[in-house]
């Protein structure tokens, strides 16, 4: 099945199941990889990816086509991943106070070192240190870094997704690299 983007959007808005399956098959890895870079937990990244596609299914009728479909998907994926992170932090913060909760252990257990499945270097410890340092970056720098280095998107595409100009993306990436260099050099010492 090969569709132009307009045809795909039109089919999705009519509730076509085949079009939705095609969309999921085409974009699932892109969505998963982006979320994984932010959430840094494979199972949680899959859960968030499911939420992304559920939202796409429910809100595609309101998609006006002002941006590319992939840009729209990236935005939903990033928003959901950041929401998930905020939710996790909140749970962690108040986990000890809520003595009568079912899920307090879930919030605390997720502290293990994250190894990105796409990490190809022999130096795995460096990879773990890098992703730990990425977690410490400010939100905008983190998004720009993940989109550029794990999704290999151009500055122009990142600028469109983040609704900022290209100079701002360059700034985010420059500062992110500086901060990560510092973090990794500290790790090496």
């Amino acid at each position, binding site marked *: 099945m090969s569709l132009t983007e307009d045809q795909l959007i039109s089919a999705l808005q009519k509730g076509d199941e085949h079009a939705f399956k095609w969309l999921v098959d085409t974009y699932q890895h892109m969505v*998963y990889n982006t979320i994984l870079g932010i959430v840094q937990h494979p199972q949680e990244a899959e859960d968030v990816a499911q939420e992304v596609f559920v939202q796409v299914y429910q809100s595609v009728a309101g998609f006006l086509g002002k941006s590319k479909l992939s840009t729209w998907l990236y935005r939903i994926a990033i928003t959901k991943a950041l929401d998930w992170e905020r939710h996790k932090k909140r749970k962690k913060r108040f986990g000890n106070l809520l003595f009568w909760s079912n899920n307090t252990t879930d919030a605390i257990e997720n502290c293990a070192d994250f190894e990105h499945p796409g990490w190809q270097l022999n130096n795995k410890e460096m990879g773990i240190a890098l992703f730990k340092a990425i977690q410490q970056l400010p939100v905008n720098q983190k998004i720009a870094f993940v989109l550029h280095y794990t999704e290999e998107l151009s500055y122009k595409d990142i600028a469109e997704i983040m609704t900022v100009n290209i100079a701002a993306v360059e700034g985010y990436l420059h500062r992110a690299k500086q901060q990560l260099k510092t973090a990794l050099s500290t790790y090496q010492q």
Partner: protein
Amino acid sequence: MTNKTQPSIGETEIFWETMPHIQRATMPPYFYTRLQAKLAKSTQNQNSVTNQLWQQMIQPKIAAFVFAFFITMQLLIFANLQPTKTLSAKTNRPTLEAFAEEYNFTFSSYNYTKK
């Protein structure tokens, strides 16, 4: 001379050169099947608001709160139902007479049955 906060030349530089070679992670297989289950569940949940409310109610925290609230209300009602001193008890007079006096009623001494 190297500053401690600055990155050391060597391994970090090599590391940055290799950075673009992080491969994309791929979604585990059968994602669409799991997604369909989630979509069905999501649609079902949206359809039954009562079900959602019930799900909330059976959470231990909320159930405990409802139970505690129910007990408190019962205690308050019970406390309010304790026998209070009645008007007749206060005045030590027959109830009807005390009631009439309270509302400025006057008793007629006329006997209507008498012809």
